Each structure stands twice: as structure tokens, then as C-alpha cells.
């Protein structure tokens, strides 16, 4: 024990290269770096795995690259939901408002409906405006809602969200058929939305499966399809947003948020004006939800009230957060990955592989056509498993609420005894937990 302690003190006092700040910084972010690398290599891994000998198996289990992009931007939305709900303990059941605001604003700007903003306004500026508008709406809703707590807070935010939902569904200014939602018109915005430095063509790439940029001979080695370029560009924005939120959580401001969750009365007694902290956290969370919505609209170019403002959109974020771990910032992204991975695995279409094509390949016909209870095995899989992902996600979700209340990342964190990002530091740098 004594030697270990000695090593701790030496590392802390700053002898040797191990305690120089770049080394410390790299250690603190080693896990982040590893995860980012894994995500960055994913298109390549997917390509190699699916064209290998066991291609069909990998194709069945690994989500497609085009599934990963929505996972990233929706994961950002779920993270922003977790930012307020998981860290301050206020369940924001109307979070879809901010997502929807971001999505609709991008499309309305691209259709040239906002005075003073040309239809060709760079996407990055639209994203920033979406974040600002969503934050303003969050402040307006928060000013009223943070007078309430617990279930009542969840309900009043839900009420506000439904007001927005019903309103946007009937507002014919945003779209000619507001019930079906707006889409970016080809007439005013024929090119894809570009992520990068605005007004510099070489430093920005367009996203979207049809309108995005493809890169031929990238680094003289690869050809990147529009899907892969969109994956990288959206991933970049999500990464920046994640790091920003992570920084805030680890700042004194974030500590007060956690104090509010643990015991708001005590936080107030120490002298923090918790109302303003909650409001600030809500605005920040709303802004990032707005960014997520903007990315969604930029990628898909058309949205509906149902997949933006409806309360079940918040429900999806809630699912991801619970499965991934409420109160762990990165958790919701993994939750979404799990959920969508399962969804694709059990999907009805043959695109992206799935359970049934794999079984058809590896099991003999006679097994699949075995009769049991009046149905063949194949028919049973088709009726009870294929396309029924939401049933199994629901079951997994209920099991998580009952038995794994901390979620995937939260449980891992508990096992390890601290945030995962600190693990390499403790293992290799001799830092105390």
C-alpha cells in the first residue's frame, strides 16, 4: 500500500512526463478518443466485415452506416434531454419542442420564408439560429415551469409541447399541408446543406443521402459515399456538442445542477439561487436539442409534426436515456444505438440484413418449415419477431427500469467505481479515484 501511495503523490506533485498537461489531458480524454476513433472507423469496419467470409452474419448484427447517422443526431437530442432530466432531476417531458423548433427553423429558412434571411443562408448559421431560438423558447417555458417540481413539472412541459404540436400542425405558413409537415423546396434550396466553415467551399461538405457530397479519392485512398460523408460531418457536430455539454457538466455550474438533483433545498441553503441555475441548464439543454433538430432537418430535408413536436419523440429520447443511463451524458447515445440496432436487426425489409435472412441462410429449409402450433417457424418469426422491435425494446426498457435503474453506462460506471473517462488515468497514471 505504501508504495502505491508514494506513486500517487509523485504523480500529483508533478515529476516526470506523466504529469505534464498534455499527458494529463490525453489521459482524461483517452476513452473519448478511443470511442471517437471507433466511430470514425465504423464505415470501414462495416465494409470489411460485411464483405468478409461471414458477411451475412455481420450484416445482420451491425447497423448500417445510414442507420448510424440518425443515431448520431437523435443521440444528441437524447443527450440534451439527459442534460436537464438526468443531471437536475427535472423530467422535461416536452423536450420535443426544442427538437422541432430546430428542425422547422432550418426548413423555413431554406424555403426563404424568414425576412432578412436568404434561402441560401449557410446551414451552419441556421444551426446556430436554431440553437438560439430553441434556447429562447426554453427560457420562456422554463420561467413558468420551474415554479413547479416533480410530476407537475413533467406535465406542464408536456402541456406546452402539445400546444406547440397542435399549433404547428395547423399553421399553414410553415407548410402548404401543415399536417404532413414542411420539406425543403428544390426551387429555393437546390443544393445540400453544408457543414463546415460557412462561405468556404473547400472547408465544408454537404449532408443528406441524395444531396450530400461524395468524395472520390479521399487521401488518395478511399471513395466516400454521400452516406459516409454525412455520417462524418454530422458526427463532428455531435462530438463538438457532446464535448461542450461534458465541459459544462464538469464545471462549477454543472456541480450545482447535480446538487439540485441530489437535494435542492440544501443547494438553496448554501446560497445558490437554484431557479436561475435550473433555467440556465434548461436553456443550454434546449439549445443542443435545437441543434439536433437542425441536423435532422438538414439530413432528411423534410419533417412531420409527428417526428418532431409530438410527445412520443420525447418518449424516444426517454427510452434511449433510460437504457443508456440517465445521468451519464454519453449514455443516451449508446441507448439509441442499442435501440436502433435492435430495430434494424428485427426489421422486415431485407435492407441491412436481419434475423430472418440470416436464419434462411444458415438453417435448413426443413427446420424453418417445421410446423408448431399451426404455424411454421418461419411464419412465427415473421409474426412475433420481425418488425416487432418496439415490443422487445419495451420489454428491455421495463426490465431496465426494474433491475438496471442506472442504465448501461451508469452500471458500468458503478462497477468501475467512477466515470469511465477517468479509468485510464487511474489505471495508468496513478491518479486517485
Amino acid at each position, binding site marked *: 500500500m505504501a508504495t502505491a501511495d508514494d506513486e500517487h503523490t509523485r504523480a500529483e506533485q508533478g515529476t516526470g512526463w506523466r504529469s505534464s498537461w498534455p499527458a494529463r489531458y490525453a489521459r482524461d480524454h483517452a476513452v473519448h478518443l478511443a470511442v471517437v476513433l471507433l466511430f470514425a472507423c465504423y464505415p470501414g469496419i462495416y465494409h470489411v466485415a460485411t464483405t468478409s467470409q461471414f458477411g451475412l452474419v455481420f450484416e445482420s448484427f451491425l447497423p448500417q452506416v445510414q442507420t448510424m447517422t440518425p443515431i448520431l443526431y437523435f443521440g444528441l437530442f437524447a443527450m440534451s434531454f439527459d442534460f436537464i432530466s438526468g443531471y437536475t432531476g427535472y*423530467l422535461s417531458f416536452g423536450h420535443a419542442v426544442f427538437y422541432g423548433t430546430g428542425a422547422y427553423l432550418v426548413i423555413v429558412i431554406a424555403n426563404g420564408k424568414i425576412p432578412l434571411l436568404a434561402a441560401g443562408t449557410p446551414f451552419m448559421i441556421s444551426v446556430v439560429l436554431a440553437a438560439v431560438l430553441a434556447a429562447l423558447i426554453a427560457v420562456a417555458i422554463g420561467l*413558468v415551469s420551474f*415554479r*413547479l*417540481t*416533480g*410530476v*407537475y413539472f*413533467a*406535465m*406542464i412541459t*408536456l*402541456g*406546452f409541447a*402539445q*400546444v406547440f404540436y*397542435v*399549433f404547428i*400542425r*395547423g399553421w399553414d405558413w410553415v407548410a402548404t399541408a401543415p*399536417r404532413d409537415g414542411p420539406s425543403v423546396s428544390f426551387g429555393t434550396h437546390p443544393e445540400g446543406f453544408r457543414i463546415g466553415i460557412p462561405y468556404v467551399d473547400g472547408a465544408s461538405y454537404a449532408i443528406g443521402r441524395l444531396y450530400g457530397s461524395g468524395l472520390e479519392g479521399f487521401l488518395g485512398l478511399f471513395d466516400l459515399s454521400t452516406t459516409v460523408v454525412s455520417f462524418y460531418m454530422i458526427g463532428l457536430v455531435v462530438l463538438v456538442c457532446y464535448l461542450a455539454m461534458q465541459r459544462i457538466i464538469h464545471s462549477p455550474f454543472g456541480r450545482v445542477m447535480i446538487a439540485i438533483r441530489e437535494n435542492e433545498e440544501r443547494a438553496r441553503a448554501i446560497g445558490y439561487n437554484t431557479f436561475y441555475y435550473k433555467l440556465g441548464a434548461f436553456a443550454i439543454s434546449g439549445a443542443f436539442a435545437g441543434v439536433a433538430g437542425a441536423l435532422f432537418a438538414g439530413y432528411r430535408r423534410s419533417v412531420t409534426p409527428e417526428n418532431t413536436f409530438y*410527445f*412520443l419523440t420525447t*418518449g424516444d429520447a*426517454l*427510452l434511449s436515456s*433510460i437504457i443508456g443511463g440517465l445521468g451519464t451524458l454519453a449514455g443516451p447515445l449508446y441507448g439509441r444505438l442499442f435501440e436502433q440496432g435492435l430495430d434494424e436487426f428485427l426489421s422486415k425489409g431485407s435492407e441491412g440484413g436481419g434475423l430472418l435472412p440470416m436464419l434462411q441462410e444458415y438453417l435448413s429449409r426443413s427446420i424453418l418449415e417445421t410446423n408448431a402450433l399451426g404455424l411454421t417457424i418461419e411464419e412465427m418469426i415473421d*409474426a*412475433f419477431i420481425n418488425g*416487432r422491435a*418496439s*415490443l422487445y*425494446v*419495451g*420489454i428491455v*426498457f*421495463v426490465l431496465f*427500469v*426494474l433491475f438496471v*435503474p442506472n442504465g448501461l453506462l451508469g452500471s458500468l460506471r458503478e462497477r468501475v467505481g467512477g466515470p469511465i473517462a477517468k479509468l485510464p488515468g487511474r489505471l495508468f497514471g496513478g491518479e486517485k479515484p
Partner: protein
Amino acid sequence: MIDATLFAAEVVPLSIVDAFVEFLHPSELVGVLVDGLSKAAIYAMIAGGLTLIFGLMGVLNFAHGSLTMVGAYLGGAIMVLSVSSATGPMTRLAFFFVGIVVVFGALSAVGGALEISLIRRLYDRPPIAQILLTFGLTLIIDELMRIVLEFYDLQPRADWIAAWGTKPWFLSQRLSIGPVDVRGLALFEILMGVLTVGAIWAFLTRTRYGLFIRAGSEDSEMASALGIDVRRVFTVVFAMGTGVAGVAGMLLMWDTLWGASVPLGAETLLPAFVVVIIGGLGTFRGTVVAALLVGMVDAVMTWWFVNEIRFTGLPELTIFLILVIVLIVRPQGLYGVEGVGGH
């Protein structure tokens, strides 16, 4: 330009005044009143079970809407299987009331089983956990229902039309009473609403078990100290609440404005929440008053939408605005007591 603005300034107020005069015409007013009462009856029925459960146990049951939907399909199945085109109207009504008993029994059993197996584990966790659990249950229930429906070749998203056809003829027509012209089903819904509210009221105030429930709502620790088995009371209340949800679903299955479909779950859940929260979480009286208020506002706004203001979501929008305003002005609801539900 100037001409156009003058024109608009003249016409808009006049047409609104005209509309007001038309709205205040007795036959229109009575029509709106009956419509409002029928809506209030439905709101009271879908929210009644929810408020019982919340008042006693503090569980905000997100699966309530889905259980209503299950009740609608179960009731519809009973009616479609038992009624043929030759069945007389009185026999159909009789089947309906038998169906209500069956649906109430079946869904009570489901509710009791859910409480014992799942919800009971979460009483000592923060109230958010129960919201989450019941939200997960809706996913499971909805998807299971979709499997069953697709097995019988029914469209999960569309209303079940065969179930509408099992109404007695006098409920599917408009009835003229003097100058007033009302939907036959509206009167039946008012009757059913009054019966349901009356039955719950009598149960709460006139039976020994109702006394236990009221005691448990007030102070469950004290009640259990006095020898009441609060755990059993919880199970019974949860079972009753889901049973009432099923009965409401059975009624909605006949109504062409609602109809049995899988989205019915989400469609009923939100108004039920609104009514429960406006009334004050946990007071049955408040829920009934709030149902009247919301039903009336809904009917009035529907009239204005149909006749004057061309904005599709007007009634819904107003209902959610009432929720927001009530929560701002009187967070505990109209009849709520401060301190219930984690204030």
C-alpha cells in the same frame, strides 16, 4: 392596399359579431351544451380511473390510454362476435352491458396482475420510476395488440369500422327533440358518464372499501397503522382504475369521433392527464368538475372551428392552453391539496 385593409377592418368584426349572434341562438346553444356534456362524460370516464390510481398511490399511469385501447378492442370483439345484422336494438344494448361487465372484469384482472408483478416493486423509488415503467408498458401493450390485429387482418392504425355497425339504430342517428338536433350517441354517452361517475362516487363514499381508499389517500402510513392492509387496497384500486379505463374504451369503440384503433391509446391518454391535472391530482370531485370544464370548452371551440375560425387544431389547442394556465395560476389544480404529488 389601403382599400384592402379597410375592407378587412370592416368585414372581420362584423362577421365575428354575426357568429356570436348565431352562437347564442337557443338551438345552437343547446346543441353545444349536449355536445359538451357528452364530451365531459367521456373525459370523466377516461380520467376517472387515472385519478383513483394517482390519488391513492401517487402513480401517474402512462399505460392508462393503452388499457383504454385494449378495452375498446375487447368490447368491440364481444359486440362483433355476438351481434348479427338481424339482432334487434334492445338485444344489442343488452349485449353491450354484458360486454361492459366482461371488459371491466378482464381489465381489472390485467390491472391487478400488473400491480402485483411490476408496479409494487417501485413504491419506494422516486415517482419518475413509475412514469417510466408504465411508459414502457404502453410500448409492450400496443405492440402486442398490433400482433393480434394483424393476425386477424385488421388495420391497427385505422378505426375498426365493423365495431361501429354493432350500435342499435337509434344511437347511430341524429335525434330531433323540438328545434334541437343532437346525436343519439351523445345522449347515451351522457347516461354512461353519469352512471360511471355515480358508481365510483358511491363506491368511494358508501362502501367500507371506499373508506379504506379515502383513508389511504389521506395518510397511508396512518391507515396501515390502524390495521388496513394498504397493499391490498393498492392492488384493488389499480385493478378498478384499469377496469374503468376498459369500460371507457368500450364506449369509445361505438363513437365515430374516436373508434377502436391502436393510436386511441395516445389520443385518450393526453386529455385524461389534462383533466386529472386541472382537477387537482387525487381528488375525484376535481376530476369530474375538470371534465365538465374541458368538455364544455372543447364543444364550444369545436363549434367555433366548424362555423368560423379555420384552424384545425383549435379545440385541442385550447384544452392544452387551459392546462398550462391552470398550472401557472393554481399549480395544485382546481380542488387539489398542496403537497400531493411531489410539489
